[in-house]
């Protein structure tokens, strides 16, 4: 049976594609060292549009209006420039309300584009450019520690990781945050205190990594201008022990918090990168796994939600769960030594 995979790796190599939504200009070049906040490309999406109904305003048929229009598609116009003028004794003039570009003329109308929306392509991942996709973007290769989360608020930043927890169960409160943590990436367990998020934003911190976040704070977290990654979920579960060990053992190192919004169809996930010096490229993670003995696994549902263990064996046939459901299951040895039977549907492979 195919297994979902979450990466929690102390040393690995990953490649991430960063592409513009529309063709544009790519600034980065092959083999360039990239920081997460580097702008590696730019595209122009066009601005707002103004549709001038010349025929209606001049009260003439569209075909006649077309002859009164003084601009052509592609022309740049400035504010107050005449767009069309009637041939009356006292001519009536239609002027551009803003600087802009004429996109279309016809049917007695003029379509103007005013302003411009430039999209910057931020690298979001530290590493080296290993491929340039012409006019669209780059592929970045990163080596170091990698932790994938389950929810991100879309922001990205880097800073020194500062654990504010002694155990994975610890709860983050506003009182724990002070000015000495300004510019740091805070690692904490659970958070259900809106004041904690508020204070973190006021300092400000460069990122917040949480085991779990109360769902009532999701709206607030989404609005924050610093990246927030939730590693385990929304139900008050502690930070999983594997992530706890990996992240606390890298305390005070520079980390990148890429709180990308998760999308299971395109594969986007929030990720934490800790660049580490390597002499040769560490192995790449496996994206596809099938359940098998000796795999490290994370338990996704109650009981033991968020616990880490080792898959001992796959149970033959179907096993009856406490809920009464009969499901394909595996025996898993938890870190506590306890051996439990878990539905395969409620497991994911860590690797």
């Amino acid at each position, binding site marked *: 049976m195919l297994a979902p995979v979450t990466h929690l790796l102390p040393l690995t190599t990953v490649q991430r594609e960063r592409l513009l939504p529309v063709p544009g200009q790519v600034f980065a070049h092959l083999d360039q060292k990239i920081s997460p906040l580097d702008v590696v490309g730019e595209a122009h999406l066009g601005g707002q*549009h103004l*549709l001038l109904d010349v025929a209606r305003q001049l009260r003439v048929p569209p075909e006649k209006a077309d002859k009164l229009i003084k601009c052509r598609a592609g022309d740049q116009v400035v504010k107050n420039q005449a767009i069309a003028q009637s041939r009356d004794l006292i001519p009536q003039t239609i002027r551009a309300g803003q600087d802009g570009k004429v996109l279309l003329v016809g049917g007695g109308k003029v379509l103007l584009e005013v302003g411009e929306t430039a999209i910057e392509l931020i690298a979001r991942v530290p590493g080296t450019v290993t491929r340039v996709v012409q006019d669209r973007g780059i592929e970045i290769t990163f080596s170091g520690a990698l932790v994938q989360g389950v929810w991100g608020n879309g922001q990205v930043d880097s800073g020194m990781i500062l654990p504010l927890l002694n155990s994975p169960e610890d709860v983050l409160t506003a009182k724990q945050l002070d000015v000495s943590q300004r510019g740091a990436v805070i690692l904490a367990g659970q958070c259900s205190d809106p004041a904690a998020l508020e204070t973190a934003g006021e300092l400000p911190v460069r990122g917040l990594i949480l085991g779990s976040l109360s769902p009532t704070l999701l709206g607030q977290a989404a609005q924050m201008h610093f990246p927030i990654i939730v590693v385990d979920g929304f139900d008050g579960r502690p930070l999983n022990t594997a992530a706890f060990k990996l992240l606390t053992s890298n305390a005070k190192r520079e980390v990148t918090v890429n709180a990308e919004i998760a999308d299971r*169809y395109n594969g986007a996930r929030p990720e934490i990168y800790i660049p580490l010096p390597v002499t040769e490229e560490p192995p790449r993670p496996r994206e596809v796994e099938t359940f098998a003995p000796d795999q490290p696994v994370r338990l996704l549902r109650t009981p033991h939600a968020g616990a880490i263990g080792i898959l001992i064996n796959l149970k033959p046939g179907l096993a009856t*769960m*406490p809920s009464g*459901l*009969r*499901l394909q299951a595996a025996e898993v040895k938890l870190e506590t030594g306890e051996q439990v039977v*878990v539905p395969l549907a409620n497991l994911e492979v860590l690797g």
Partner: protein
Amino acid sequence: MPASLIDADSLLAVDVGSMTTHATLFDVVEGHYRFIAAGQAASTAAAPFKDISEGVHQAIENLQTITGRKLIGDDHRLIMPVEEGNGVDSFTATLSAGPAIKTAVVGLLNDVSVESAQRLARTCYARVVDTLSLNDQRKADEQIDSLLRQRPELIVIAGGTDQGASRSVERLLETVGLACYLMPADKHPAVLFAGNKSMVEKVKSNLQNLTSYLSISPNLRPTLEVEDLQPAQRAMAETYTQLRRTQMGGVDELSSWAGGTLIPTAYAEGRIIRFLSQVYDPSKGILGVDMGVSAATVAAAFGGELTLGVYPQLGLGEGLANLLRYTSLDDILKWIPLDLPAERLREYMYQKSLYPTTLPASVEDLAMEQALARQNLHVALNSLAKDFPRRVGRPAAGLMPYFEPIMAGGSVITHAPSLGQSLLILLDAIQPIGITTLILDQNNLMPALGAAAQRNSILPIQVLESGAFLGLATVVGPIANTRPGTPILQVRLVHQNGNETRVEVKQGALELLPLPVGEAGRLYLQPLRHADLGFGPGHTRPEGIPVTGTVLGVVIDARGRPIRLPADPARCREFIKKWLWTVGG
């Protein structure tokens, strides 16, 4: 062309869902079509595969293992037609995988063509992100910018009765055309036009080169009074499939195996429900419900007229993160027999949205999952009920019409730990009235039969009659305006062997009268205090009603319509526990 057994003997049907891919084999056994076996595998539409082929191949391989029949050749292609006992004679496919299609709806008047276009969008896996109409206060350029921001994948355009308004439609077409023109070529949306037929040539000339796919359907509102969604539904289904072909790997291959007849799962389910409504008692409707992870689907048909609704926001997966826009925690909590804080339920919903394929292993999780299934199905059904044809009678405002039978799919219902739980989920969610039969689709056959019905009308009928579906219960749902505890019905069930079971049913009660599968009986119902069983207040069929055995027998659900639960949470839990105990836990 009438179908025959000779046309194609065996049929392999594949249904690709967001979470699971099913492969189902039908073949002729002793001169009749039969369901043979089903294999399933995790769907692979999402990352890292982003291609449905792996899941399809695995599901078929699992089916091969079960049946011992080779279906895929060494070249990884489907063996079709049958060669030396291997392969199949025909193949159908249905698809629901993928995120809901971002859809913009365009029409003239909000309460006429826009409403019809929205109803059309609801027949497929769509999420309406923008609506343009003459009622829209925005200027044309603001509408253009809105479309550019929303980037719909599909634009459904309706408006103008045939021979009716054309200039207003033209204005809206111009707005849509300009927005499409301004989108990058690789982001052009598909467009489905189902408006004034005199505008078709204009639509083609204006939009043909600005869309990824242009579909023209007969007007869904040919006159102001008449709404005809059926042809537009077909066009909507084709457009959906076409979009998925460009968005998702493996859809092309699946479509070619199906000879180009790949259709959306909900469309297939709707088709079989409509088909059955032409076969069964014309005085009642047929109801089909499917409570899935990616959507709740409800199909109701009355004498061949189908009302279909797909509600991605009411699925039991990713949609749960936004469910509280459509219902409340209290309305879900009331169905849970355990004393749980509301926050625990909220957390469960958000956590499940992160891991939609996970399953409830604990008693607490199961209680929350089943409560969500009840409430979501209830909300979906009540939403769809607003679109039922006006001619469809209801015993009172706010109640469901009479249905016979009610067919249910979705593993939360069909694979509940006990059949009593399946029964109670359906009774609580649907609250059927009159006399009806509940049928479970435990093998996910509905999409397959709906897809097959297009080419072979014999197969669905014979499979339905073969016992491939599970008859869950015959339900009697009386309506009585009286206090709980008051007798409202005397029931006498006479078995084939002459044995009788008698019971007096009180308002508020839930009673089960066993009538095992394979047996038959006659049900004599004597309503008291003007209770209505669907024959009019206080009326009955003195000659009795023939009933056939089902796994749970005859169920008298006299809990009231609508079911009114006590306001006190503790008492409410007691009621739910008592009902669970009554149906076998």
